């Protein structure tokens, strides 16, 4: 790496004079942040499931789900009104949802070739359709993969395959992962993925997905060879610590990131080098809750956690020369993030918009905020 690494910079320049003279303590930065426009939406309940709309014709639209105990939960579809600069919820597009949704996702269809649908997971996978005139949201399909009708375990997560939008993979606490064909509304495959509950699943391409589990392993599955899976990482301190979240870099499918239970570090993995993390991101001051890879850049990732911070990291230096880079980074005390945002409370959910790549959305307590990167 030529040139001077390290410190960023002639930092604040231009703009208002106050910034230059400030000492840069937390409060001042908070004020600085507030000066830039932030769009916030306050829901009547704690938000957990949240995601961006992908369709080209519906920008700045998100779906949010409540986190209320029991059966009666709600979902709302909110949108930024660019004229007023406010995020508003359309009451016609609020609907009831049984049990708190563990995840929500809009169909990854930027070109509007498919109907306007979104999926949620809770006790089952449900597909909802937003009416073309945006007058209501109705349930289009309830997908129950359990042949044995006695059982219905909660789905911990799911992922929509970008390359084949008719495929959705779900993960469940019954140790299985199910791949659905939502056009036929039928199960494509059901695999016993792990020895324990599966907590997250992510597609890496057509027919390839990975999952993380309470057994502490990240496994990659290829639908062409369902008998075998590859373990590309196992948690080590102590062994068998559950891994709770997984993100696969859609821009560069060699890389994925995972969150360890109760841990403030995020582990970045390379599927070509199993068991050896590419880098571990240590800068959170409390446990991490969510990760999101940049949809337009192969080397940026955003992480958020209980320290109320959302950090953006640049991983471009952690490239091919693995060993030297890793040890160099370790020598410096680890890789530093490049950008940070401090929210008002622990950030529970983070999603990076794939259709508007300079926006990320975070959810903390009852608030949704969309931030410009």
């Amino acid at each position: 790496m030529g040139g001077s690494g390290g410190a960023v910079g002639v930092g604040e320049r231009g703009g208002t004079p106050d910034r230059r003279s400030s000492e840069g303590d937390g409060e001042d930065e908070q004020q600085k942040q507030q000066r830039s426009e932030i769009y916030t939406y306050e829901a009547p309940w704690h938000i957990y499931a949240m995601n961006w709309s992908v369709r080209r014709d519906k920008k700045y639209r998100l779906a949010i789900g409540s986190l209320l105990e029991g059966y009666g939960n709600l979902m709302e579809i909110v949108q930024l009104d660019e004229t007023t600069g406010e995020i508003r919820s359309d009451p016609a597009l609020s609907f009831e949802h049984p049990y708190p949704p563990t995840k929500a996702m809009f169909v990854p269809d930027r070109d509007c070739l498919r109907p306007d649908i979104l999926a949620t997971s809770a006790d089952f996978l449900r597909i909802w359709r937003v009416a073309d005139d945006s007058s209501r949201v109705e349930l289009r399909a309830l997908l129950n993969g359990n042949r044995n009708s006695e059982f219905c375990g909660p789905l911990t997560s799911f992922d929509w395959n970008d390359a084949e939008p008719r495929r959705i993979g779900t993960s469940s606490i019954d140790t299985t992962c199910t791949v659905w064909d939502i056009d036929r509304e039928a199960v494509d495959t059901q695999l016993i993925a792990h020895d324990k509950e599966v907590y997250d699943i992510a597609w890496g391409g057509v027919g390839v997905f990975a999952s993380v589990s309470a057994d502490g392993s990240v496994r990659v599955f290829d639908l062409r060879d369902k008998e075998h899976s590859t373990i590309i990482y196992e948690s080590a301190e102590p062994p068998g610590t559950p891994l709770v979240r997984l993100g696969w870099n859609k821009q560069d499918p060699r890389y994925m990131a995972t969150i360890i239970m109760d841990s403030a570090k995020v582990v970045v993995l390379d599927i070509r080098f199993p068991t050896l993390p590419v880098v571990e991101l240590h800068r959170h001051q409390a446990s991490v809750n969510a990760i999101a890879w940049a949809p337009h850049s192969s080397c940026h990732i955003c992480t958020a956690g209980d320290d109320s911070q959302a950090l953006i990291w640049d991983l471009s230096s952690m490239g091919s020369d693995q060993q030297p880079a890793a040890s160099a980074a370790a020598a410096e005390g680890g890789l530093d993030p490049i950008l940070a945002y401090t929210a008002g409370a622990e950030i529970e959910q983070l999603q990076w918009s794939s259709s508007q790549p300079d926006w990320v959305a975070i959810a903390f307590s009852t608030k949704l905020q969309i931030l410009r990167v």
Partner: protein
Amino acid sequence: MAVDPEMRDELPEKPLRRQLAATVRTIQWSYAIFWSTSARQPGVLAWSDGYYNGDIKTRKTTQSVELKADQMGLQRSEQLRELYESLSAGDSNQQMRRPCASLSPEDLTHTEWYYLVCMSFTFTLGQGLPGKAFANNQHVWLSNAQFADSRIFSRSLLAKSASIQTVACIPFMGGVLELGTTESILEDAAVVTQITSFFWELPLPVCSEQSMSSPQMADDDDDDDDDVDDVGTSMALEDQNLITDHPIRCPFALHSFAPSEQREAVHDKAEELHSDHRCDCSPGDSFQTQQLEDMLETEGLNCVSQTQNRQFGDDELISLNSNKHASMSVIRASSAVGERTRHPMLDNSKHVLLDLDAGDSHYANTVATILRSSKPVRSVSCFLKVSRKSNFMVWRRGMTTPKPFTGAPQKLLKKMLMDGEWLRGGHQPKCQEGNEPKAWRLGESGTGHVLSERRSREKLNEKFLVLQSLIPSVTKVDKASILGDTIEYLKDMERRVQELESCRESSLELDAKNRRKHPDVAERTSDNYGSKEMMANGRKSCSIKRKTCDAGETEAEHHWVLSRDGPIDVIVTMKEEEVVVEIHCPWRECLLLEIVESVSNFHLDPLSVQSSTVDGVLALIVKSKFRSAIVASPGMIKRSLQRVIGKCL
């Protein structure tokens, strides 16, 4: 095509460029290039003219006069051509001699760079997209150009960094007309027709002559008009991003930011380029950003748009630098020229380059030539550090959160994943009536192996409970300590047994004959021992029973051992291989079975069993033989039998 080559050659360049301009602007694509057969190299298609209609980062103009959009575009294309010429001349000094308003490489976006590099390309018949179109005299449409095989589309790598997604090559007028765009557009013959018809329709004197000279096109004119309109409208609707294209971008340079201020901003940004991170930030996305900004602008958020110009500039500047980096790594890969570190994330591209055949080394060579003269540029993170618009701030070491987090880590996350009961708020889901949440949490499911696992787990738990009740010293309930205590107890017992065996065996041999007459001293000792054990349990009934026993003494009184429920007499005799066990004890259910089981535990094979139950007293004689070489001492057998018998239900 009815135009003869001579006519084409006579066409002055500018009108061609205007035609290209109008065409590409109408269909709102990013660039148009006309390849024609080179005069210098026969049979080879080379750059003839082009018009760039894509993203622009910095506009360098000397005049402050408001120009129309098409004029701006033409000027830009001219500037790009000038830049190319100066670079390919390879003279580093040339830059100083050029007017200050001329472009330098860092001013370009990815797409502009792509356009510029295209100027250096030549295609033989059948080579590359233009060559193929020319050879077959048929249009070639390439979607997902950035992923195309470099054998088909030699500039695919460049296209990738420029985010050019669609390229169409149409043989035309003795050459090939190439258009490309950063949007992904599916092949559409109507567009091809539209493009070609546009060339004939342009309201330029030269063009109209052309249209008259091509009779076949004239007939189609009317039809094309309608088609064109329809296609035009539909395209406009399809790509709403591009609606606010030129009219708004035009005043970009003439915004409240004076051009000089902009340039200053650009230079200041250049100062900040010193970190070595690189990103794949593509202008396609800044393009979209621009669209958003334009939209917001038109909606009236003027205060916002001002800063956006600067931000836009930053994005492009930065993304260009990364493009430079890309190009530089190309050099390194192919010709070992270049001083920059190879960018690691470009591994993929590196592999692609290594697979290049001779045709594509042209690209590497071109870039090498061009870049040799330009000053090295360091790449920077593609994210803004400064713009007022970004909500994020530069991360600094020692940046602490407002209040340190003290609560339960990942509380909500864990609730969502693990605490099914909480999720269901104590309600059973409709399909799972009667099942306990605990079972759910254990991961019960309809799949067979999990059920059987659960059963075996339950069995294990049961056995642990039994063990817990057997071992007196077990205090804790967890499995590890149960097992630990059991092990301790066993060791203890074995030790004791060994001690007693050694003295028991010696006394046994002595008293073998005298058993009837004299009760085994050892036996009594052990009986007493046994009774002590029993009495240690503190049952009141013991004392009462004893009295009763005493009352009913018989000859064999001293044999009897007092127990909770009555006297117990156990006699174990060993004669060579045969062991005789004689028991008198109060009867209770399953006692017989337990005794026999206990006997067999010592590897004794019961040969005959005589038993009778009279007045609640079981009299039992068991004759057995040692099954294996393992020999248990009578003392051990007796003690265990006593325990079995004395065990309260």
